[in-house]
């Protein structure tokens, strides 16, 4: 399959792995402890497990699976608000498929759907707008979530709704932005991350400039990476090379897709429609300043939070959950006290067990064979 298989070539992988091993040996000899590299994006976590990359790496490299899975970091209270919306008479709630299983305090959207509420899976916000157009008697609310990757398509959908003056459509906005969260991670007192793989698709929109502080202020290398397994290996190699050379820079391995300047069109659409919220809550990480967006006042007519009275209650994460410790790299998924016991993909307790991109779900599903007790 063209444009895919080229990036999965096992012979090239072997060559890269030999170089990675040599570099890692050099770097870890000086440091005397393993090298911790965080892949920020859930898409990378997924690829790492799906292709078995973790087990191919030398033991001196430890991958920390970061907070870049929008489904995983969605707080329970927001899911409850979604269910409250779906319970309003005449409301159709349109959502991406993988948000269906996220548990709130009152269960998941999947369970709400099973109770008979009108919850529909869409593949794009435009599909939700199409429902509103085709069924004018329904009040369609789109459950918008994701980082800058999905933000532009939501923005364009709102602009389209405005253009066509479709009033039975609105957005329940849960879009979040990754930069403040990277900053929050770097400000953790016991930070043990030596370098980052930067999110490729987010960078396609925002470019590479916003990461500059990671290198300049925190002296950590960051390499924006693609999602094929060779992309991931090459990006790890680039991070290690920086470490060996004593450099901390922002580099772009994914230049075939992500331009350093990002996408102007996407940025403009986002800026026109959204503004930063003062705070947004992340499951497992708590409240992070300026980490979420909402619709601007001019688009209030399409803003579900302004149009409907929502419970808007903060729900504490289950006490037993250690998602925050996993997200910050303090513990590995398997070390969490409820992993695989109270918390499984069928009955997720913590956020990281929910989406296939969540580190715990990936561990559960694909296993970390090297570390599995025989």
């Amino acid at each position, binding site marked *: *399959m063209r444009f*895919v298989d080229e990036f*999965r070539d*096992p012979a090239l*992988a*072997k060559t890269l*792995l030999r170089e990675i091993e040599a570099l890692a040996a050099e770097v870890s000899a000086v440091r005397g402890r393993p090298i911790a590299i965080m892949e920020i994006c*859930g*898409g990378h976590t*997924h690829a790492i*497990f*799906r*292709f*078995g*990359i*973790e*087990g*191919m790496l030398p033991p001196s490299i430890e991958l920390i699976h970061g907070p870049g899975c*929008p*489904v995983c970091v969605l707080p329970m209270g927001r899911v409850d608000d979604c269910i409250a919306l779906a319970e309003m008479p005449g409301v159709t709630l349109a959502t*991406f*498929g*993988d*948000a*269906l*299983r996220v548990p709130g305090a009152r269960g998941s959207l*999947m369970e709400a759907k099973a109770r008979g509420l009108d919850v529909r*899976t869409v*593949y794009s916000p435009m*599909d939700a707008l199409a429902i509103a157009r085709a069924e004018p008697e329904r009040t369609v609310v789109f459950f918008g*979530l*994701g*980082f800058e*990757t*999905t933000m532009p398509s939501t923005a364009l959908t709102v602009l389209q709704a405005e253009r066509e003056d479709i009033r039975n459509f609105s957005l329940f906005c849960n879009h979040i932005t990754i930069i403040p969260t990277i900053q929050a991670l770097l400000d953790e007192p016991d930070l043990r991350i030596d370098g980052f793989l930067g999110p490729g*698709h987010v960078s396609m929109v925002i470019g590479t400039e916003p990461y500059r502080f990671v290198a300049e202020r925190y002296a950590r290398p960051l390499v924006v990476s693609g999602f094929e*397994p060779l992309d991931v290996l090459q990006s790890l190699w680039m991070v290690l090379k920086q470490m060996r050379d004593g450099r901390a820079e922002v580099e772009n391995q994914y230049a075939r897709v992500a331009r350093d300047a990002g996408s102007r069109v996407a940025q403009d659409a986002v800026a026109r429609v959204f503004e930063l919220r003062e705070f947004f809550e992340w499951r497992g990480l708590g409240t992070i300043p300026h980490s979420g967006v909402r619709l601007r006042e001019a688009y209030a007519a399409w803003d579900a939070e302004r149009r409907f009275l929502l419970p808007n209650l903060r729900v504490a994460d289950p006490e037993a959950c250690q998602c925050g410790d996993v997200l910050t790299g303090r513990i590995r998924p398997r070390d969490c006290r409820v992993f695989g016991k109270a918390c*499984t*993909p*069928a009955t997720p307790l913590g956020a990281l067990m929910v*989406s*296939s*991109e969540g580190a715990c779900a990936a561990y*559960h*599903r*694909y*296993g970390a*064979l090297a570390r*599995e007790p*025989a």
Partner: protein
Amino acid sequence: MKALVEDVFVGAFGEVAREDAATTRLAELAAHGETLAFTTDSFVVTPLVFPGGDIGKLAVCGTVNDLATAGAVPLQLSCSVILEEGLEIALLRDIVRSMAETARQAGVRIVTGDTKVVPHGACDRLFVNTAGIGVVRRGVAPSSAACRPGDVVLVSGPLGDHGAAILAARGDLALETTVESDCAPLHRLVGRLLDAVPGTCFLRDATRGGLATVLNEAAAASKVGIELSETAVPVRDAVRGLCEILGLDPLYLANEGRMVAVVPGDAAEAALAALRADPLGREAALIGRCVADRPGRVVMDTAFGGRRIVDMLTGEQLPRIC
């Protein structure tokens, strides 16, 4: 109603029992073997007609294949349909004709049936249930608990065609593809395999949940580990492409005409040759082996050179957002 049954069903199926029960002489069954196999399955698929088949063909193949996995020669089927008020008679006629044609080609008889019509909204257009009886071939006893270390795992053809065809045919993804469902009766293919390798340990058609689910069940029941090689698992490019776009895994896609077989290691060549000799098994492949390590686990060596666990699927596969 009586007219509908007469017209649509009896016309297509021919000798359907006019009494409340079909009868068969035991001696006729006993000619095939000593053990009776009996199964039932209900079919609810959207859309009712899809590239490569329809719900009628599916209902015959599904039950024939369930009998085949027991090592049985399928002989007779029942057919129960539940119709939603308002279903087009022409469509019903097409589906019933397809059922009759599939049964005729498979050499099984539809001997009894039932029809119910429910009010609009009480069912989704058309549900079909088929039950089937067959007689198990002498000297074979495939079982999910019978796999042993050293056995090898085979599939009769590329995986995921049916699941991919249904996803594309639903139309809500606006994806165009040339993939057709693999829906087919597999008892003749199984017959060839059992003639060549009567000691076949395990047989299962990889329907809902796909290959991954079937192998996890076998690994758990037999208390063996199963090791797959991704490069050996046949998947068409069109199916891989669809999975790449949607973030799905072909190992979990449904098949309706693919048999998974586990045979002793020394019978691998004979089994593969037997499968490939059948028109439905030309693309059969040896994809893995049973091992003593990690009992109950299915592990796959990825094409990229890594290794991962192939777990049971939790609920439906859901497309990923980014």
